[in-house]
């Protein structure tokens, strides 16, 4: 770890980023370095490591310092690592976090994976040795770098002090945040307990709860994110909010459904709707709850669950018989069809065209030929 130097700018002239990986901890030899988990950056010239909180205090060493590298596979409770064996630090090396080290190698521990790609790129850079072609010019201080540049002049002690200050401030912020969070949770817990008590009473039919009150109660649960334990309703966990949503969806999805042959997978709907909204997005549960209300609101859409578990929204106008009949026509015309071929024919997704074929098969109109070449459907002549 004594090969590292402090650096206060990210890239220098002629130097380019190759790859970065979050969640990396440094090891001095086999011992963990007294630093937090940070981000490792590989450039054409250097290996840089930074704790994201301290942008103007990173560590780096030139790639030319590397003798060779090894991979160390992860295991139970251990992250995968890259071991980097280094030449001794040159005399004119800039100051860094460690003045000396008994090890001649460091390790990068990948707590959020990414070790394979990083290793590949590092190997590549060491083969290409691009740093030899384009020597780096003097560091250019960018934005946040200017402060750091000044503290550098103050020497190592000044830097360490600054880091210590920042760390304390950060710790203070974090611990304040955690404390506030804990207090908030205590209050939230009270709400949960109260709602449980109410739910039990509703279940045991104690007292006289009106429908209005039940609806209000459900909306309170929704606001708090408490699961609805009272399951006697027919509309799922639907609340007034979901009712509104259901109507909105009814309007919004007409055209897209028509374009897609009358059927869309729920995940497709989720993406479509949320991309359109941009903000105040729907949760997956919101979407499901709203779709469950289509029927009771007499909207021309239906939520449907196939045997495979795939959930779709389909237009009422596209009746099941029609779909199956047309599927049979298509298959008979072509002799046989796979889901992929059918999808291409209709302009549907493969997933949904497969469901249609399966449905037709279930109704006895098609039969299958299942081999490693794929699943192919034929008209059922039996």
């Amino acid at each position, binding site marked *: 770890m004594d090969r590292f130097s402090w650096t206060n700018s990210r890239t220098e002239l002629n130097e380019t980023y190759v790859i970065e990986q*979050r969640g990396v901890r440094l090891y001095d030899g086999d011992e963990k370095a007294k630093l937090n988990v940070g981000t490792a950056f590989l450039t054409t010239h250097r290996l840089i490591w930074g704790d994201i909180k301290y942008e103007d205090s990173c560590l780096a060493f030139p790639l030319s310092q590397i003798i060779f590298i090894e991979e160390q596979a992860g295991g139970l409770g251990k992250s995968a690592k890259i071991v980097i064996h280094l030449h001794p630090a040159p005399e004119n090396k800039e100051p860094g976090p460690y003045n000396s080290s008994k090890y001649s190698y460091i390790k990068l521990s990948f707590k959020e*994976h990414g070790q394979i790609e990083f290793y590949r790129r590092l190997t590549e850079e060491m083969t290409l040795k691009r740093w030899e072609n384009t020597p780096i010019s003097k560091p250019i201080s960018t934005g946040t770098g200017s402060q750091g540049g000044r503290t550098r002049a103050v020497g190592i002690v000044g830097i360490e002090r600054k880091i210590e200050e920042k760390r304390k401030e950060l710790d203070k912020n974090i611990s304040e945040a955690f404390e506030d969070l804990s207090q908030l949770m205590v209050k939230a817990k009270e709400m949960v307990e109260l709602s449980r008590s109410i739910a039990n009473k509703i279940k045991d039919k104690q*007292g006289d709860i009106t429908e209005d009150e039940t609806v209000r109660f459900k909306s309170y649960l929704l606001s708090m994110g408490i699961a609805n334990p009272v399951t006697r309703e027919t509309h799922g966990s639907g609340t007034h909010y979901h009712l509104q949503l259901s109507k909105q969806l009814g309007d919004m999805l007409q055209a897209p459904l028509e374009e897609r042959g009358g059927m869309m997978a729920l995940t497709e709907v989720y*993406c479509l709707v949320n991309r359109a909204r941009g903000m105040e997005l729907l949760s997956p549960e919101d979407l499901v709850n709203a779709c469950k209300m289509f029927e009771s609101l007499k909207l021309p859409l239906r939520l449907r669950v196939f045997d495979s578990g795939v959930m779709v929204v389909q237009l009422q106008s596209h009746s099941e018989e029609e779909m199956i009949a047309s599927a049979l026509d298509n298959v008979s015309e072509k002799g046989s069809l796979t889901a992929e071929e059918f999808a291409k024919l209709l302009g549907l997704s493969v997933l949904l065209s497969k469901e249609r074929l399966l449905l037709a098969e279930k109704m006895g109109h098609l039969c299958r030929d299942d081999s490693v070449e794929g699943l192919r459907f034929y008209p059922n002549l039996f």
Partner: protein
Amino acid sequence: MRRGVGTGAIAKKKRAEAKYKERGSVLAEDQIVQMSKQLETFKSHLEEFASKHKQEIRKNPQFRVQFQEMCATIGVDPLASGKGFWSEMLGVGDFYYELGVQIIEVCLALKHRNGGLITLDELHQRVLKGRGKYAQEVSQDDLVRAIKKLKVMGNGFGMIPVGGSYLVQSVPAELNMDHTVVLQLAEKKGYVTVSEIKESLNWQKERASHVLDHLLKEGLAWLDSQAAGEAQYWLPALFSELSSRDVSPEEASQMTP
């Protein structure tokens, strides 16, 4: 349904109230009123918390983990609804729901190549790439939570533990224990052979073939019958980290499944 009116009903209510007061318990409808008040109070506490720490949640994945775990402990799901307080005031909802969209899109884009199975690592890398340099940090824990939420939409989203991490499944292919175990075996090299299965798992040839055939049919495995020695079954989901050029959907459909 209106509460009963008339003297009979009033008397009945008075008796019920008396009975409850005796036991020291409160009527449900009174509690609902109480809850409504407490909710308002809670809402303002949450607003205060948000004004101080909303940034922390946005920027700090570790803090998010703490937050999520605390919520789970007390029985609250901050991601249940976009209309929930947590989502509206802390913005956690939008963060995870958008992530959900990005996850679905990545999985869809790669499905023709890997059959709907992708490593959490690759998913993470691709989502980060899609989000761009200046977007908020996204950890693997964030992805896992977003995926858990996606499950409710029934499209077969699931996670299979493999080699210290996970494979994310995004299609409703049925994968039982046998399939999972073979996937785990294939993780080291990206492919597996019948002999390796027989040796490592002590299975009969038929069982191994049956599992491999299923993986082929589902498009999760590709067969290299010309490999030296014995046929190799490659899992595109696993070897994507080695250099391999991207395959277009047309090309994929022409390859031996």
